[in-house]
């Protein structure tokens, strides 16, 4: 890959390892729990952009929140470069929290309207036990790093555009030199012309700083463009993990195939194979998920075994991981072209 990975000085092993993670929420009123994430495992390498895609109710945001320790972890392990993040408490938790920073969908809600851009970026620096000597210089270099200039530093959030605000959020997230940046739908609310600029920024941050990114989105086109590897989530479980190229050109899970088919392609009809949607209905309730394979109620290749047996996420030829009993038999179509 690029950047720091080539130095050879980095310790071996993945940066982040999520192992059999379960996130549960208690449902108010009804005495039941909602398993938002049910046994999810993946790794993010150093300097890697890992994309996580899924529709509403897939649990992709709960994964991000669990890594940030903002969601209740019912079971499983989250390990960041040897540190069990899921077991940290109190002081230790605060000390390690800075190593993972998050950027959210709504760029405005994440900024205090009364703070200037300078104050917003400097705030995490001030919160440290030992604030850096040259905080002012650091803030100036951060604002340039995210593609704004020092004239923006004394402005208030409401005078900035949505894209500029999201750049400020990224600068603030970078202030503590995190090892992992978690972006939860960070470009989803932006106009496409602005979204493109943020995607370019994230790519350049990865290449120049060697930072790892967990990029969560419902937009397969954006995720596939940006990520090295992509995980596809459905109803709290991973359906497939593969390199972005392999996932889009040769999906191995029927749900991935359906997602690719449903994605509207901005191409002229002459360059687009018209295909009917491969998937009917909507995602079932996460409070009462189907037995066996969670996707079986909407899968067009469904067989008897799918209801009886939960398919494990397992390696298949080609390097990816798939949770489908019949991955070897099915011939699935990739992105339309």
């Amino acid at each position, binding site marked *: 890959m690029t950047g720091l990975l080539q130095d050879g000085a980095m310790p071996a092993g993945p940066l982040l390892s999520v192992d059999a993670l379960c996130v549960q929420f208690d449902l108010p009123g009804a005495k039941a729990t909602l398993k938002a994430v049910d046994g999810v495992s993946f790794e993010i390498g150093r300097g890697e952009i890992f994309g996580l895609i899924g529709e509403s109710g897939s649990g992709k945001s709960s994964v991000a929140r669990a890594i940030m320790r903002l969601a209740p972890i019912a079971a499983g392990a989250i390990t960041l470069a040897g540190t069990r993040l899921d077991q940290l408490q109190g002081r230790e938790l605060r000390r390690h929290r800075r190593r993972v920073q998050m950027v959210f969908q709504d760029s405005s809600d994440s900024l205090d309207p009364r703070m200037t851009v300078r104050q917003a970026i400097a705030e995490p620096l001030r919160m440290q036990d030992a604030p850096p000597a040259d905080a002012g210089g650091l803030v100036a270099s951060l604002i340039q790093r995210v593609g704004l200039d020092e004239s923006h530093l004394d402005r208030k959030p409401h005078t900035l555009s949505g894209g500029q605000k999201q750049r400020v959020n990224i600068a603030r997230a970078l202030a503590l030199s995190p090892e992992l940046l978690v972006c939860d739908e960070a470009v989803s609310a932006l106009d496409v012309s602005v979204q493109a600029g943020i995607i370019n920024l994230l790519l350049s941050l990865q290449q120049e700083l060697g930072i790892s990114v967990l990029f969560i989105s419902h937009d397969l086109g954006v995720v*596939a463009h940006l990520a090295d590897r992509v995980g596809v989530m459905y109803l709290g479980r991973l359906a497939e993990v593969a390199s972005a190229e392999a996932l889009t050109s040769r999906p191995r899970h029927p749900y991935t195939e359906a997602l690719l088919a449903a994605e*509207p392609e901005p191409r002229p009809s002459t360059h*687009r194979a018209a295909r009917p949607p491969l998937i009917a209905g909507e995602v079932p309730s996460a409070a009462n998920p189907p037995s066996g394979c969670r996707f079986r109620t909407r899968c067009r290749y469904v067989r008897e075994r799918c209801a009886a047996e939960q398919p494990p996420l397992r390696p298949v030829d080609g390097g990816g991981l798939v949770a489908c009993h019949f991955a070897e038999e099915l011939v699935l179509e990739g992105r339309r072209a």
Partner: protein
Amino acid sequence: MMAERPALVVRNLEVSFLTVDGEVQAVRDVSFEVGRGEIVGLVGESGSGKSATALAIMGLLPVVSSRVRGSAMVSGVDMLALSPRQLARVRGRDMGMIFQEPMSALDPLFRIGDQIAETVRAHQRVSRRAAAARAVEILGEVGIPDAASRSRAYPHQLSGGMRQRVMIAMALVSEPAVLIADEPTTALDVTVQAQILGLLRRLSRDHGTAVVLITHDLGVVAETCSRIHVMYSGEIVEACGVDEALLAPEHPYTSALIQCIPRAGRHRQPLHSIPRRRGSSPDVRPSGCRFLPRCAHAAEICKAPQPLLDLGDRAVRCVRHDQLALPGAVERVPQ
């Protein structure tokens, strides 16, 4: 086929909002038409004026704080010249509208079947029983399974996709000539979006409904519309067939919009973005081409006011359109 009168003809539509800072123009000189059974896309980013255009045609802009000029003919009647009372009579009967958020667009306190039946009774003299039966019938037509029992459900008991189907059923129950769909799938999951777009295509074809599809998503337009109108800063900058726009855009903004979208085969390559040139203020609209501060092809001549140039099967608001060979959605084979 096109000899018959178009279902919707919008001419010289202007919309401005009265704010504390004075009158702010949101839509300028917008003209377009939609034929029976045709789906036309109105595409733009936030602030392009596409939603203001839709609300103006429906007469849904606040009377006290907005000003609308021009005309919008539906079945030979100018919607913009009607009194509020007359407008209420034609809304829902001659033209319907669906919105982005199916969550909040339905009255949470009424059963969906009653909300549709109420629409029927607002426009036709029929019994309660007949209106209820019609509601069940149209719910079935928009693909709601078990429509008779689902008609007794409240909106919160339905999923987002089902609610949008209810919205479509409600808008089409009186078989209006024109349907305006304002970002109808933006809040929905992509697999549900495909279903809803398929439903709109089918209903438009089967009933001859003229559809104005308002969206920011060129992919949605490509899969659904026959013609496209690209809006920027309140003006139409390019109007043509969808395939023509995607193959060979003639306005720099259309081309730039296409280049912003990630595309297969260009994994991790920098995307085109449309930055504002340094020193240009977003609050000041140039007197010439409005896209000028962000245009990569700007020249001195662009500072003059730009009319929408009629090129026969296409209209472009760019004086340099024939000097530029702008990239589209597919690599063009060198001639």
